[in-house]
């Protein structure tokens, strides 16, 4: 962790990791999609439409993973003052939000054949929608504060407030409504999904995770370079002021 604290070292490591991650992610997602669309059998109830699950469920997992990542980065900013923590948080927010959005859209598309409408206010989708709003809030806060130090700290506080609230929100939304399928993967007594469906799901999940990490590293690099440009511009301004004086 400490060696990664140096932005230059981080850029080097990221540059080397990115091509490998890209290949691995594409490979796994490719295999996963093949398994999902051609190998896995159709559900006896839902037919072919169940295949959307192979995109929807991993997206939902990664939306939550992204927020947890941001919350951990928030601790890094506020408690350990790790210099790359706020870069990690800022880079992760749009990626997590996008996965969240994908989960919402695929969830809606998946639901249409089952429920007859594009949106139903059941517990899972509603919680995911609220998570999306929390992401939007984080991104909006980052945009609204010009000074990056304050932006990083404020976003970190908001992320921690959000992460504490997420279980409460989930509990309250569950209490409010339960229409969506119960969480069929993790359940006492084993998963209730047929193993032939489980394999593609996990392949997709791992592939998506690698994709997240890939995008995250790319975004972090971009942010670090952006900050360097800003610092160079500031030095240029100061130097010009000195020359004038």
């Amino acid at each position, binding site marked *: 962790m400490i060696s990664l604290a140096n932005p230059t070292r981080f850029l080097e490591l990221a540059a080397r990791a990115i091509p490998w991650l890209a290949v691995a992610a594409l490979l796994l997602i490719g295999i996963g999609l093949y398994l999902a669309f051609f190998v896995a059998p159709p559900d006896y109830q839902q037919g072919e439409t169940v295949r959307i699950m192979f995109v929807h469920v991993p997206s939902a997992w990664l939306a939550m993973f992204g927020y947890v990542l941001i919350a951990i980065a928030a601790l890094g900013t506020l408690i350990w003052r790790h210099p790359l923590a706020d870069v990690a948080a800022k880079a992760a927010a749009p990626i997590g939000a996008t996965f969240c959005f994908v989960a919402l859209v695929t969830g809606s598309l998946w639901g249409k054949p089952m429920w007859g409408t594009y949106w139903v206010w059941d517990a899972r989708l509603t919680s995911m929608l609220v998570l999306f709003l929390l992401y939007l809030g984080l991104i909006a806060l980052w945009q609204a504060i010009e*000074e*990056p*130090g304050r932006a990083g700290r404020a976003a970190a506080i908001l992320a921690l407030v959000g992460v504490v609230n997420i279980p409460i929100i989930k509990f309250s939304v569950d209490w409010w409504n339960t229409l969506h399928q119960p969480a069929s993967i993790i359940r006492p007594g084993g998963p209730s999904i047929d193993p032939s469906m489980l394999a593609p799901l996990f392949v997709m999940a791992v592939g998506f995770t690698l994709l997240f990490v890939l995008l995250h590293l790319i975004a972090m690099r971009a942010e670090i370079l952006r900050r360097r440009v800003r610092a160079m511009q*500031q*030095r240029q301004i*100061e130097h010009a002021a*000195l020359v004038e004086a």
Partner: protein
Amino acid sequence: MQQTFGLAAHKLGCQRGGRTIFRDLSFELAPGQALLVSGPNGAGKTSLLRQIAGLLPLAAGELHLEGASPDHALPELCHYVGHLNAVKPSLSVGENLQFWSTFLGGAGADVRNALAAFGLAPLADLHAGLLSAGQKRRLALSRLVAAPRPIWLLDEPQTSLDAASLELLDAAIGAHLASGGIAVVASHTPLKSKFAHKLALGKERVR
């Protein structure tokens, strides 16, 4: 008798917005001494005062309170009078001062003394929104006397003050130093108070 303290700064560094404002700044004040901080705008005078008051963290170095026990916190021993006056227009002069006196640990008599020290007694029942700029500044400065604190941090205190009011300010600072207090004053213009130490910021640009 109020407890007296010394204040020592050792190699202070200050950063704002990622830029270094100053570094390697050191000074030492014994009880009864005052420090005058001068320098152009942006040199860090306000930042230094805010660091001592605990509003801005130290990027480097340390601040040491001489003669203090561990349960003394530096910000709670300081009066900070910045550019803004912290005056509420819809409260009266007396109410404004009474609030700050209670909040900052003063006693009842302190409010009367504070009003008198800055010539505000006749205005005590007026809404503070009606005051002129100079009167509002005097109200802000009267906080200094409304609650006893050993360290005074004054940022351009003479702004908007006329000659008579400047005399009142100097008298207040003088009395404070005489009873063993410390003052750090940032100012462009000369004040009559005797400053044991002077610090000029911004002489060299930090690269």
